[in-house]
């Protein structure tokens, strides 16, 4: 466990609004090893973006970390000063955003945006900046970097912009890269290119990556481990093949069953998840997923389920794992599909 570069422990984040306190992240714990890619999956509002922003120290002003620690190489990121934080950001950890259009300053030249932080922190001279920018643009496969250097974001396509954002993130040579839904705002045809780029860069530079997405399909190709979040909590976490082939939480079942694959037959029903996520102004007592869970037990309305251990690496928070609970099988549709895919090895861990 010594090679963990990041350790999040019992992290909770709250937002103060006029109408009350929204508990966006509740008691989230995970760690990240060097060179590992962890995918965090969940629907919108599940707290996955907030978690990543808390790690980067860029929460909104009305958000507070109400408890927990974020340990990053002997530092607790929840305690350090902004000045110290800005020295870590960029040079040791960096972030790629969902919408590359709004992430780039519309009135600043591309090349300048890429090397801006390096020049300002004095890591390279103003004179060397263009060469460095072009090197980074080559690394993210931007054609004609010399010409592109002097252009503005509006002259770039969506995919190209995202490559620029990645180049900005790589400029300081970080060891941890957080990707917050980096492909969601892009055309489908461009998505796989960006994913491939991130995967290649990860291997090349031995980056640790936190990859946030709501798309289960993306996870298999890119991550070693994955965490499923629901209503601000991690409900299942494990190696990718563990979670994919042996899912334990009913919510994970639902997510997997809602995702079609090439083999999905025409008359096979895709399962949708009934109901809506709970209002996080007033999180329900017990298991937040109970109201939408076909297999909800009475205890789900009384006590929040703890994390049950399935293997050394695989945990899930559902009462169904308690020894006294009735035996429940995952839906047949899903079972059939998983068997089919297991045979084909469709969800290899991508490495």
């Amino acid at each position, binding site marked *: 466990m010594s090679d963990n570069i990041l350790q999040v422990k019992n992290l909770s984040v709250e937002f103060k609004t006029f*109408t009350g306190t929204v508990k966006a992240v509740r008691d989230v714990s995970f760690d990240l090893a060097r060179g590992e890619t962890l995918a965090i999956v969940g629907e919108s509002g599940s707290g996955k973006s907030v978690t990543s922003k808390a790690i980067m120290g860029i929460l909104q002003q009305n958000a507070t970390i109400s408890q927990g620690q974020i340990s990053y190489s002997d530092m607790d990121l929840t305690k350090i000063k902004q000045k110290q934080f800005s020295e870590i950001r960029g040079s040791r950890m960096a972030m790629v955003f969902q919408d590359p259009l709004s992430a780039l300053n519309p009135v600043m030249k591309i090349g300048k945006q890429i090397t801006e932080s390096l020049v300002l922190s004095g890591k390279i001279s103003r004179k060397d900046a263009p060469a460095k920018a072009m090197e980074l643009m080559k690394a993210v496969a931007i054609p004609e970097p010399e010409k592109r250097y002097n252009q503005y974001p509006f002259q770039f396509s969506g995919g190209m912009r995202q490559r620029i954002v990645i180049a900005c993130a790589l400029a300081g040579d970080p060891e941890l890269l957080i990707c917050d839904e980096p492909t969601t705002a892009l055309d489908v045809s461009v998505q796989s290119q960006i994913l491939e780029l991130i995967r290649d860069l990860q291997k090349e530079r031995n980056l640790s990556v936190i990859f946030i997405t709501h798309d289960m399909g993306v996870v298999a190709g890119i991550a070693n481990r994955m965490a499923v979040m629901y209503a601000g909590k991690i409900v299942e976490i494990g190696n990718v093949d563990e979670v994919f082939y042996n899912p334990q939480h009913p919510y994970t079942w639902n997510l997997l069953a809602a995702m079609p694959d090439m083999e999905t037959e025409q008359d096979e029903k895709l399962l949708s998840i009934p109901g809506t996520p709970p209002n996080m*102004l007033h999180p329900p007592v017990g298991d937040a997923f109970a109201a*939408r869970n076909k*297999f909800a*037990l009475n205890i789900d309305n*009384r006590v929040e389920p*703890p994390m049950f251990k399935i293997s050394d690496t695989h945990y899930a928070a559902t009462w169904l*794992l308690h020894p006294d609970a009735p*035996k429940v099988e995952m839906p047949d549709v899903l079972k059939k599909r998983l068997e089919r895919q297991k045979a084909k090895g469709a969800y290899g861990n991508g490495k």
Partner: protein
Amino acid sequence: MRHEANSIPVDNVELLKNYTFTEDDFQFQEKGEVLSDTVPEDPPVGFFKDAMIRFSKNKASMVSIFMLLFIIIMAIFGPMMGDFHFREQNVQWDRLPPRIPILENFGIFDGTSVVTVQVANMPNWESVYIETVRTFYQTAGARTVPMAEIRIDAYANVGAEDVYFWFGSDMLGRDLWTRLWRGARVSLTMAAIAVLINLTIGVVFGAVAAYYGKKTDMIMLYIMEVFNAVPTLIMVIIIATRLGTTMWSLIIALTFSGWIGMAQMMRAQFYRYKGQEYVMAARVMGASDKRLIFRYILPNAIGPTITQVAVAIPTFMMTEAFLSYLGLGIQAPEPSVGVLLSQGQEMLLTNPHAVFFPALVISILMLSFQMMSNGLRDAFDPTLRGH
């Protein structure tokens, strides 16, 4: 493999320490075969009602409403509360400082003022003398005269021991309390009418220009530019001299180009929203122009509009004060906040209260409008709905 002994909780064990599991805990909840997707927890709430609910939950907004109501109520009833009529002159009681019963016993609003006299002349003031603030020497030509600043009972000094001007009196001995609230009434009425006119013209003009776009927009934009280029002050003065300085002529003068800001804002808002997909979708589904404008686009502009209105009313009063200073304010003896400010300026150094109270009224109006507009903007922000 699920029920093996090693499948123990890995964290939050403490939570469960005091919990004893029962049989019932591990029974399935009674649920139908299919979970319904439509379980609205609350009855549906309309956009405006929802906005109003959120507005009333905001403390700052409620405070602002109370402050506004206070000013409005005072503007209605304030002039009747004092002992004086707003144009009643008592020239012998001019420029008196504020004096309020009860409060006068606590050293404020006690009707005293400080005058500078020669020490030699101090016995002349004996009957009204209260205390000496400081003494100093003044050199006048070859001689140095000992001087003193003494606090006197200004009311006793003019033989008005039993008179109370709550906010003091002006240079004609008129009661400033009565005049201030009367003036607030006049100013608020004028400002409200002018803003309403500006709003109507601005909304229609801006909406039409942006909604129809192309040539219509170009022409309307040019019209706005021409109006904007007209030197407002010159125009206001011409209108004031042409129509006299009545309430209505001032309103016309100040709406002459006042609607432009509103129209520009509305135009920008419309451009921002008319291309959005939900508007396109409504258009594809056959919504009429009127429906698109009023139901789909206009509600988005409510926030910025209110902010604009909130600034417009105090600004209007300032412009009016400015005109009063140039002698183009509302016809005497009718007061307005602007008239009071410009008259107060003339005795600013001896009787600062004459400026202080009208300025205070404008400040309160400005602050409460600003707080209210912030609250309304949040309340009407569709992205914050349901929170």
